[in-house]
């Protein structure tokens, strides 16, 4: 009997959820006949089953509700919101009773007469409710006679078939059969052709929920396109398959070593079969995300009525599938966020109208797959996050100081809502405002390895984006070795693998003991895995074998990974090659130095033991094919450890924002050095291509110009400062600047350090070559104006010779804005060198600069809603040239009105004409920096004027 009740409970709960959804839909589409009949059918089924199982209270409520629904279906009662509310009330009552039934095993005591009276009043038309609207066509009598597509009335044949099915079903309980016999007239569950709920009903009602019987009933004439299987069975299956995967891996491992064995063919077969099986079983765990969303329409509807707003919920991508476990975990966070949007985000109809928005607020739920993750977006077109209120709350809670807040971008400030206890709602409503929400949401999402991000524009709306991994269990990982111990790194985090050799281009360089590596155009910070994990150095035996100099190498404490070439290559030839795993966390790249790299394997992730949970470096452990246990590294934890910007401190953003933020260069990496005197000097690290130590005796002179043979070409050299001593012998450090085949070496005295700081120019540069002074690492430091040296050198960095030093009076003296919002400039240029040159220049001049490499990236940003005051674009670019870019921008996008300036080293009259015709307002030569700055401020001023003029005429 218990099993019957359990089955009933599961199914009825499902039906009730479906009813919720359908009724809300019905409200929007009151004349949808299919919907009407479906709803009626569902209620009818519930009523029938209740009667069948002897649950009188439930049956009564359902019966009376069904009556009203019958009238809807027949078309002679209009579907009004009030009636829908009444039906929803009945459903809630049923849920209540079912809940009581679940807890105690029998129906709770209670009186439903008030509700039933209301239902009857509607049914009998006593409440003066509206008669059928023109939409319904069929007269009541006909509707009863003619079975609708659903066939909700049983004909005699159907009843017979049903009885037959009952007789055949695996039901040890005679009770079940007897009951059917006793009440032939009872409304037995409807004909089996229909929806899932009903499909399973006949077999289920008669048989206990038993796995064996589940299998049997699948063969019944009742077409079962879906099947109920106990969750435990599936879990077990999943575990078994995972173990099989591991064993398969073991076998494959063995096979690799004895490749020529009679086992290889069958094993290959086994390999394929197991992979497919694995995929198949994973599928069983997948459920469409629509299931998590099913309750939302009802919640939003109720919320809208409660707070007197008009809210429409749109759901896209309901079929996107994700792991059942994950689904369970995100159900609540999703509900919470949608409620928030409805409660705090969407404004009431009058406010919306006044703001020029449609009265009905829209909440959009969007889910899709992307790169091994599921992305779920919850966006609303409400009033966005109230920046000022958040700031006030932050100050109130002491989470940051006013100065710190000043420095933050609005995105960073928005991140504060993820703090515990944070709520800017003025009053705590029943729906939200208790301030326990978003931090719990974020914790829950991070628990499953996902991330949540938020974008908001005041007045326009907010978007939350949740990213979760597709499955938790099996992951591709790269196996690496360091200090003779192996570790796994999740494949998704690995961007690339680089082999570093002792000599030549790809060697690991050190700056003051910190290893760095030049990866294409950037310097990549490195961390040695064995240092990070404090692994003991490899066996002394290995080192001793290598050479007799090993003893001296042993006695000093440098860890083996130290890149100073002299020691390593002599003491341990095995160390000639090291591997760098380039890892990406957020928008930061860094490299992990390891000794060896094995291959990629699929591993079953097992969580670490509780006592080890707090070690941030590891995200789990696993058993490899050879049976050994290895730890799985967590790139996030490693990034945190080496002091990179980490996920939770507000700088974590979506990829797009990441691009913006990194391009913005709020903190610049600077290379500190001395040249000529004791004052430290700094140059943006990103501009420096290489650091070299040049043997002074290799410097040659020609026509007064110093140069050195560098990589097969002549590289001009110049000292940064005339006081830099260049003797006849010895070595001097040289900063090499390179771009497109040209290079220049600047000789300095000594490299001090690398640091990351805001460049806050305090004193404007007087002497040629310095932009000014700033406080870097606590000391007054001269910021070098690289452009000056490049120009002064006379090589063709710039086509024109313009000796006017930088430091024109138009620049604001200290780089701060004067209280106005900084103007946003977008710079598009494929040359990283020029981007890196122009960006600081423009920033110091007081603009907020975003620089991008390709017009494609720029257009993507445009799609995402980024706005700029001016767009500066190069002309010669590989993917799309400046003309095409301008055309695209001017024709179809939000940036139509934004003025565009063309920058080019080609400035013939034809180019200029062409530029003007595609929409550039001005055409500036690349080398002409002063003109650039002037034109920029002019253009913005003009734009501002135009805007002000039109604003007066526009409807707001």
């Amino acid at each position, binding site marked *: 009997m218990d099993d019957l009740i359990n089955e009933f409970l599961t199914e009825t709960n499902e039906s009730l959820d479906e009813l919720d959804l359908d009724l809300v839909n019905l409200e929007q589409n009151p004349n949808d006949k299919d919907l009407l009949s479906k709803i009626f059918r569902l209620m009818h089924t519930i009523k029938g089953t209740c009667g069948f199982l002897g649950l009188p209270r439930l049956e009564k409520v359902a019966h009376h509700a069904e009556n009203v629904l019958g009238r809807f279906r027949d078309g002679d009662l209009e579907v009004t919101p009030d009636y829908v509310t009444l039906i929803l009330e009945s459903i809630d009552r049923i849920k209540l009773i079912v809940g009581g039934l679940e807890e105690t095993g029998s129906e709770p005591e209670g009186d439903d007469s008030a509700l039933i009276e209301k239902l009857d009043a509607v049914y009998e038309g006593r409440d003066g409710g509206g008669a059928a609207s023109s939409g319904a066509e069929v007269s009541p009598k006909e509707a009863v006679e003619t079975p609708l597509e659903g066939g909700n009335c049983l004909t005699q044949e159907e009843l017979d078939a049903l009885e037959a099915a009952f007789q055949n079903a695996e039901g040890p309980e005679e009770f079940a059969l007897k009951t059917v016999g006793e009440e032939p007239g009872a409304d037995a569950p409807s004909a089996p052709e229909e929806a899932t709920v009903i499909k399973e009903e006949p077999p289920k009602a008669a048989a206990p929920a038993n796995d064996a019987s589940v299998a049997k009933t699948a063969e019944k004439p009742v077409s079962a396109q879906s099947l109920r299987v106990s969750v435990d069975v599936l879990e077990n299956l999943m575990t078994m398959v995972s*173990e099989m995967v*591991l064993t398969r891996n073991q076998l494959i491992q063995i096979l690799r070593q004895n490749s020529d064995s009679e086992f290889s063919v069958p094993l290959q077969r086994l390999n394929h079969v197991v992979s497919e099986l694995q995929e198949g079983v994973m599928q069983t765990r997948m459920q469409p995300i629509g299931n998590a969303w099913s309750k939302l329409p009802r919640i939003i509807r109720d919320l809208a009525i409660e707070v007197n707003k008009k809210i429409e919920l749109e759901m896209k991508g309901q079929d996107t599938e994700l792991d059942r476990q994950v689904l369970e975990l995100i159900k609540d966070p999703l509900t919470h966020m949608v409620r928030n949007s409805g409660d705090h985000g969407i404004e009431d109809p009058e406010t919306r109208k006044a703001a020029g928005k449609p009265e009905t607020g829209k909440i959009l739920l969007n889910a899709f797959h992307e790169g091994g993750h599921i992305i779920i977006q919850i966006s609303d077109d409400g009033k966005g996050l109230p920046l000022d209120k958040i700031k006030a709350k932050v100050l109130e809670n002491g989470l940051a100081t006013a100065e710190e807040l000043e420095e933050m971008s609005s995105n960073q400030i928005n991140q504060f809502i993820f703090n515990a206890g944070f709520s800017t709602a003025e009053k705590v409503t029943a729906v939200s405002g208790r301030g326990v929400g978003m931090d719990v949401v974020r914790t829950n999402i991070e628990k499953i390895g996902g991330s949540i991000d938020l974008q908001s524009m005041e007045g326009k709306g907010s978007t939350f984006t949740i990213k979760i991994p597709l499955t938790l269990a099996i992951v591709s990982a790269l196996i690496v070795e360091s200090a003779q*111990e192996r570790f796994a790194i999740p494949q998704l985090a690995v961007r690339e693998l680089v082999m570093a050799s002792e000599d030549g281009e790809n060697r690991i360089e050190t700056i003051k003991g910190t290893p760095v590596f030049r990866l294409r155009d950037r310097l990549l910070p490195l961390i040695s895995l064995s240092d990070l*994990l*404090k*692994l003991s150095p490899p066996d002394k035996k290995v080192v001793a074998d290598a050479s007799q100099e090993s003893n001296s190498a042993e006695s000093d404490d440098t860890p083996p990974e130290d890149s100073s070439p002299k020691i390593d290559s002599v003491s341990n030839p095995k160390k000639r090659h090291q591997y760098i795993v380039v890892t990406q966390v957020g928008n930061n790249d860094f490299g992990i130095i390891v000794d060896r790299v094995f291959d990629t394997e699929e591993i079953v992730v*097992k969580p670490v*033991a*509780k*006592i*080890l949970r*707090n*070690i941030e*470096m*590891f995200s789990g*452990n*696993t*058993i490899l094919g050879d*049976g*050994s*246990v*290895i*730890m799985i590294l967590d790139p996030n934890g490693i990034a945190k450890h080496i002091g990179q910007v980490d996920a939770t401190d507000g700088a974590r953003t979506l990829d797009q924002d990441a691009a913006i933020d990194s391009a913005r260069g709020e903190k610049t990496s600077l290379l500190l050095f001395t040249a000529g005197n004791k004052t430290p000097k700094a140059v943006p690290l990103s501009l420096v291509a290489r650091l070299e130590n040049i043997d002074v005796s290799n410097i040659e002179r020609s026509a007064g110009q110093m140069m050195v043979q560098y990589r097969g070409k002549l590289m001009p050299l110049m000292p940064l400062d005339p006081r830099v001593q260049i003797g006849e012998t010895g070595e001097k450090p040289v900063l090499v600047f390179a771009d497109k085949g040209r290079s220049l070496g600047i000789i300095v005295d000594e490299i001090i350090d690398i640091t990351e700081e805001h460049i806050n120019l305090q004193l404007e540069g007087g002497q040629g070559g310095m932009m000014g002074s700033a406080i870097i690492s606590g000391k007054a430091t001269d910021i070098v104006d690289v452009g000056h040296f490049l120009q002064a050198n006379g090589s063709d960095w710039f086509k024109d010779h313009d000796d006017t030093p930088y430091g024109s009076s138009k620049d604001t003296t200290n780089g701060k804005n004067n209280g106005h919002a900084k103007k946003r400039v977008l710079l598009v240029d494929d040359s990283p060198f020029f981007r890196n040159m122009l960006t600081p220049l423009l920033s110091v001049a007081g603009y907020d600069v975003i620089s991008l490499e390709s017009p494609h990236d720029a257009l993507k940003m445009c799609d995402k809603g980024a706005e700029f005051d001016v767009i500066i674009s190069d002309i010669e670019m590989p993917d799309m040239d400046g003309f095409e870019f301008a055309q695209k921008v001017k024709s179809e996008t939000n940036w139509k009105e934004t003025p565009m300036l063309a920058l080019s080293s080609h400035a013939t009259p034809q180019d200029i004409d062409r530029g003007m015709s595609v929409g550039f307002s001005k055409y500036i030569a690349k080398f002409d920096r002063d003109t650039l700055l002037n034109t920029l401020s002019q253009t913005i001023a003009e734009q501002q004027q135009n805007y002000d003029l039109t604003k007066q005429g526009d409807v707001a």
Partner: protein
Amino acid sequence: MSANADALDYEGSENQHDTQSKEFLTIVIAGQRFGIPILQVQDVLGEQTVTKIPLAPPEVAGSLNLRGRIVTAIDMRCRLGIEPCSKTTSSTMGVVVEHENELYSLIIDEVGDVLRLRNESFESTPSTLDSLWREISSGVYRLDDELLVILDVPNFVSSVHS
């Protein structure tokens, strides 16, 4: 070598209902005998290959693979403060216990017999014992020639949780 003490099949099951006495597996750590309630013991293991876990607390000797499940090995000598913790201790015998759905292997010196001890000989932990031992002991049995300290496994494991 692995002896599985599955409670349901154990021959002494009829004694579960005998409230006069309880059964314990005796183990020896640095010469001191301890007892573990037999129902808490899952396996007894011989020498195992243990993978060290970097950055783990010193009493965690590493992890090992037991029939497909990962077991965290805990160095008992180190944990009980009998010896200074040094990572190069090789594991000798291990007793596998389960706590909150995770497996732990307690690394010990020797395994003794299974003893059935009468409740009368049970005493609560002497208060003069040092705090660490008091934390993990659930009592002492008076045996003929020595005292048997009973290890309280759940407490013990939670206390390792740093």
